[in-house]
């Protein structure tokens, strides 16, 4: 099979079978990349690290990284499209079903339980983000390991979002600039 087709199908498989969020696909990526001799174990670890430093979903970032390393631009394109294709197909089916049946009382009943679950998951995503961004890593969660400058940035960000109604994208840009000034330039 030509490499590009193989890449596409491999990432299609990874995208189709990963349930529950990007990081769940790490074992699958490892198995496929290393098993096929496309990447070394260290490179797979690098994928994870880099994908966390870049915007965008982890799965797409990982696919592009791997595809680039394996086959340059065509590899990047094919891997990324591969991992995205199952999403498109499945979500189109789900959307069509949902839009036809959303007023059905059984669907509404199911949704009445799903909505709180989603809010809870969002809450736990907040907890994850807060614990990784507001505490120094490797020191556990305690008063001693609080990254107070980051707490200050988060508080300022919150104030700007809620009271200044700052657009989230502007807030993110501003946080980045503040980060560069405080941490890189001033070395805090």
């Amino acid at each position, binding site marked *: 099979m030509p490499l590009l087709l193989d890449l596409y199908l491999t990432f299609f498989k990874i995208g189709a079978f990963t349930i529950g969020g990007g990081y769940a696909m790490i074992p699958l990526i490892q198995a496929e990349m290393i098993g096929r001799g496309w990447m070394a174990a260290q490179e797979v670890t690098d994928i994870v690290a880099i994908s966390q430093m870049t915007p965008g979903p982890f799965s797409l970032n990982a696919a*592009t990284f791997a595809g680039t390393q394996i086959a340059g631009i065509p590899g990047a394109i094919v891997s990324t499209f591969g991992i995205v294709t199952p999403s498109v197909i499945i979500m189109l089916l789900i959307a069509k079903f949902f839009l036809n049946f959303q007023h059905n009382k059984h669907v509404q009943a199911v949704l009445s339980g799903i909505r709180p679950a989603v809010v809870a998951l969002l809450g736990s995503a907040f907890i994850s983000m807060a614990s990784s961004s507001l505490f120094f890593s490797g020191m556990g969660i305690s008063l001693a390991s609080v990254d107070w400058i980051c707490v200050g940035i988060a508080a300022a960000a919150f104030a700007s979002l809620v009271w200044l109604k700052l657009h989230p994208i502007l807030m*993110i840009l501003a946080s980045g600039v503040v*980060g560069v000034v405080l941490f890189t330039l001033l070395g805090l």
Partner: protein
Amino acid sequence: MEDTAVRRPERSFKLLLQLFATTFKLGLFTFGGGYAIVPLLQKDFVENKKWIDSAEMVDIVALSQAAPGAIAVNASVFIGYRLAGVPGALFSALGSALPSLILLYFITLVYKEFAANKYVAGALRGIRAGVAALMIQAVYKLGKPALKDLFGWIFAFICFAVVLFTDINAVFVILGGGLIGWLYSLITGKLKKPSGDKKGGAEE
């Protein structure tokens, strides 16, 4: 913040381009994990453009999380389909995928230097703190329309505890939530069928 009624945009090629541009823009700024796109979708599609209402957004996030694949891509496909059918879904999917493809391609070429770059590190440290603030605001903005009664609130806290203290996969939390929601409706009599009514049909 009061939601005024949504006005669905007129379907046109311009709408397709707008969907592409919006999902592309949001994809560029989604830092910190799949859920980080939720507040961006909320701000753009619900508050600014008013093409989707907040109650719908909760459902979109739920379905996007439950389905395999990245939440950002799933949600983009759903919203695109909602607003402009299959073409809308495709333009949105493309918009959500291209920022990663382009950025990561270039970053991969210099990734060792990128990972070691002090400007990148400083910016990220600030951005991640900002995203934490964004996430807590998102919990409030989605929580308000999503949790309309005592059951909703209590169940949300139970789910939160489950997610925090167990390793249960998010998808099972959602599916389990759906099942429990259905059972609860059954028990509280919300699913009583008038004669001649069939399960599975669309109802008004």
